[in-house]
């Protein structure tokens, strides 16, 4: 072997042997550092507690008024009681405060400004790094953002308990999966920056459309049957509608398990899709700005 060759035989094997633990450790560090970074900027999130309370209040009064005007003798609107509707509003917004992240914007900015070059000269998977950072952000949000929002909103508007206490556990699991689906989707959208000029506009539009398609704004049960069945085939319901309806007890037994499996499948499927899109995009990469 010539002296100048960079590859050392056996190097790869050795990396496989000790690789797993070392690599996992690296991605844990990225999550930890993201957590610390957001902790340093926590002041920004205090105003967020107020705005989420306002979102919930607005929807609370809207749906209360709607229920007040229902025909005599009708108990349900869109298949929900008023108490369920209020829980729906609270949980979907509180859930959003946890599952939301900005990795689409972060990735897009790195691509547009050419910073992505510095990620590409590192021996790691950019997608996994970004997801680890999103995980760090999610943990920060859970403790410093979602929890305070919950503490303000629940006593203020009244969240009813689920029909079965076991649903607390299933709801937490379902929201964890919702976070994963949302993060994969955001990564995919961020990748579009390799192809689109005005990616920030797309991201802004996506944010608004998502509030509708994930069911945060209005429960799917308010819509015609064809719309509901169309939503069944899209990943967006996994981000909010599924975990919230799990809590309300609208998915029981077999249905519940299937819903969670579908969520997990979306998370995995979108991860694989993200991986593919990433490798195609990197080949196409033409960096702007030097």
């Amino acid at each position, binding site marked *: 072997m010539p002296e100048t060759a960079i590859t050392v035989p056996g190097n790869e094997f050795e990396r496989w042997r000790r690789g797993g633990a070392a690599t996992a450790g690296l991605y844990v560090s990225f999550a930890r550092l993201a957590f610390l970074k957001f902790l340093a900027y926590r002041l920004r999130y205090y105003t967020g507690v107020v705005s989420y309370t306002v979102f919930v209040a607005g929807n609370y009064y809207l749906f209360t008024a709607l229920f007040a005007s229902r025909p005599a003798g009708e108990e349900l609107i869109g298949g929900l009681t008023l108490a369920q509707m209020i829980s729906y509003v609270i949980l979907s917004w509180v859930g959003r405060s946890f599952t939301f992240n900005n990795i689409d914007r972060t990735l897009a900015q790195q691509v547009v400004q050419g910073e992505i*070059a510095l990620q590409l000269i590192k021996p790691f998977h950019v997608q996994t790094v970004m997801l680890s950072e999103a995980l760090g952000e999610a943990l920060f949000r859970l403790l410093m953002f979602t929890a305070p929002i919950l503490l303000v909103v629940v006593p203020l508007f009244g969240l009813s308990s689920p029909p079965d206490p076991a649903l607390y556990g299933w709801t937490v699991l379902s929201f964890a999966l919702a976070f994963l689906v949302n993060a994969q989707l955001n990564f995919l959208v961020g990748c579009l920056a390799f192809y689109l000029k005005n990616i920030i506009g797309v991201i802004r539009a996506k944010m608004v459309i998502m509030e509708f398609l994930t069911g945060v704004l209005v429960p799917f049960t308010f819509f015609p049957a064809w719309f509901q069945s169309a939503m069944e085939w899209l990943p967006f319901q996994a981000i909010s509608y599924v975990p919230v309806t799990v809590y309300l007890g609208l998915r029981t037994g077999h249905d519940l398990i299937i819903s969670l499996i579908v969520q997990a499948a979306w998370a995995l499927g979108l991860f694989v899709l993200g991986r593919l899109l990433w490798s195609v995009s990197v080949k196409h990469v033409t960096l702007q700005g030097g």
Partner: protein
Amino acid sequence: MEPLIRVENLCKDYQVTRRREGVWGGVVDLVKPRREILRAVDDVSFEIPAGEMVGYIGANGAGKSTTIKMLTGILTPTSGHVSVGGLVPWRDRTHYTRHIGAVFGQRTQLWWDLAVIESFHLLRKIYEVEEGAYRKQLDLFRELLGLDEFLHQPVRKLSLGQRMRCDLAAALLHGPRLLFLDEPTIGLDVVAKESVRVFLREIRDQLGVTVLLTTHDLGDIQQLCRRIVIIDHGKVIFDGEIDELRSRVGDRIKLTIELREAATSASLADVTGTMPVIWRAGDGLVHEVEFSRRDVRSAEVIRAVVNDRPVHDLRIEEQDIEEIVRGIYRRGDAKATDAADEGQEAGDA
């Protein structure tokens, strides 16, 4: 010996959209954009043996950064071949990046919100550097770059010079044998520039790192590299040692002579007789004469003048590398055609 870097017939095309003028042109652009192919790197070939420090220079937009991006695996070329220690950068990118370091002067690879030392720890994990080797490397850089005073500050609070020193350390922590530097002294003051240059000389001599350096600052080149590759409009227009460049361009020398008695330049031209020199027209005490070292020795010119006239003072100015390169850029297009006979010339020498 096999060279560490081998670049063969490397080309990179960009597609650019050319905008039409006026409102109507804007509307037409929406429907039918006018696309053109721009060749940023055009048939570039060179080789770099291990341990060498080579300057890669050219004007803005000449294709320097594009070449570096292909060599670091960030960009995939349109055509051509690159082999670095047996690896193809863009194809084996993730594996390849373990063996190289890179500094892009305009950007930082450090984490903006983290203390410098935290970034270094993270890099240690990214590259899976053994604790002992990491300690050794870090201690060396702390000493050579004087990092101690700001090692615990967040990167965003560092001055540009401090940040560059940290970036250099960051690029070398995992002990790469090859370092790419894209304008490492851009925007730095004289003192900071000097400390970067001293450091680069140290790592070349102590660690034997191979370095490919792009820069606009020809001072970097003069102090660090014996060999340079000049690129213009995507093509290599010179590849060789700086001394060779000097002699090829003619190596002009300017001699300033201060006489004790006033004289005209015409009379001085008579003194140098048939020597191929050019006197700047004028009369008085101070005169300037220019010639090429290739044609005539400065000693001969001086002897001729001193023997004939009472001389008060003499000053010899060599053309600096910057002027030489500027000359090369200007001749860039012409170069492509007579490159063949020049190659022969170099071969004969």
